[in-house]
């Protein structure tokens, strides 16, 4: 099974290789995309009637928030504190924007839905954030300069990988400590057990700039592949680089 839909403003690609899943798994795949659309409606800061927007306008009290949004905001606060304020979903002069955490968290939940429905060998890719199960899967990391090239290939059996970069939307990740765009890195890729962690850590480390490399690398269970502002790669020893079967370009 291979399905692609646009949800939350980006393409979401689902591939399930389990035998017989086409017949039995269609409803599970439907549930995955329905969940992601629900997340968009409830947690998008760009929708005026979302829970996030209503909370931001003061129409909802903290105690009135759903368990899901409370969990997301707790994660945001955790990473704000852990990065010394570099990662901040409440930047001065801007509305509450927890998108960076919502994305990884919601796609991880989608992967959990698939697993609960019996899928074992699948890969779910939401705008470049990948949750994988039952590998080995070969995951390429987009080259920060050349869109049609990869800068590395990693092998993932069960786990997640996320990349933060500024090659596409420009300087959209702000260092909350300075209020200015984070420009210290070209690209930051993090491998972790869950996409909730991989995506949050990749974005938070990117916001920190060069020092985010060491910070992310020091987190237990996180493997890092970073390209710094000068185009130098720094990666952790345990980053799961795939066996060479590539052709140099």
């Amino acid at each position, binding site marked *: 099974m*291979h399905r*692609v839909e*646009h949800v939350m*403003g*980006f*393409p979401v*690609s689902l*591939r399930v290789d389990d035998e017989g899943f086409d017949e039995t798994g269609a409803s599970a795949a439907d549930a995955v995309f329905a969940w992601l659309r629900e997340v968009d409606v409830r947690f998008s800061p760009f929708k005026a009637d979302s829970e996030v927007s209503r909370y931001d306008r003061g129409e909802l009290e903290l105690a009135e928030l759903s368990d899901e949004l409370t969990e997301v905001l707790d994660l945001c606060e955790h990473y704000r504190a852990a990065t*010394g304020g570099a990662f901040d979903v409440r930047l001065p002069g801007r509305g509450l924007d927890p998108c960076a955490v919502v994305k990884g968290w919601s796609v991880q939940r989608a992967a959990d839905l698939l697993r609960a429905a019996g899928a074992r060998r699948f*890969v779910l*890719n939401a*705008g*470049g*954030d*990948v949750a*994988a199960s039952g590998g080995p*899967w*070969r*995951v*390429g*990391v*987009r*080259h*920060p*300069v050349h869109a049609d*090239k*990869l*800068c*590395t*290939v990693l092998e993932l059996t069960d786990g997640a990988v*996320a990349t*933060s*970069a*500024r*090659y*596409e*939307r420009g300087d959209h990740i702000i260092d909350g400590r300075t209020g200015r765009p984070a420009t210290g890195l070209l*690209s930051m*890729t993090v491998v972790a057990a869950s996409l909730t962690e991989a995506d949050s850590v990749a974005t938070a480390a990117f916001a*920190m700039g*060069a*020092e*985010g*490399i*060491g910070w992310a*690398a*020091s987190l*237990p269970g996180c493997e*890092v592949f970073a*390209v*710094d502002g000068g185009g*130098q*790669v*720094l*990666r*952790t*020893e345990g980053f799961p680089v795939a066996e060479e079967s*590539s*052709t*140099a370009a």
Partner: protein
Amino acid sequence: MKRAIPVVVLSIAGLVPVWRYEPSAGGTTSTTESASTPSASASSGSSGTTSGTVVKGTTITTDKGPVQVQVIFSGDKITAVKMLQQPNHPQTTAAVPKLIAETLKAQSADIDTVSGATITSDAYKESLQAAIDAKG
């Protein structure tokens, strides 16, 4: 060595926050100074490294204790960064990362999926992931 020095600075800048080193206004400067005045020592110094020059950074005092970084060069390239001294603190000793420096490569390969900041639909259309999805 000219090109390598900023990387040393960068590596140290990246490692130091592990000890929650709170730099004052001049914090970055002091890190830079420590890194740009390394005392080079022969590679026979520590472990049985195969080849390359081993450079020890100056010890930096943090509020958790002294920190010293060792960088191994192969020519102008850093091949390994290692902590020689680290504060004896259970929270931090377990979390010391070893970073490997490499040259950025542009490659093509047979892959199942692509990780990247593919957020907009226009960029997706031209992406490798779109090609993979189109293949079905």
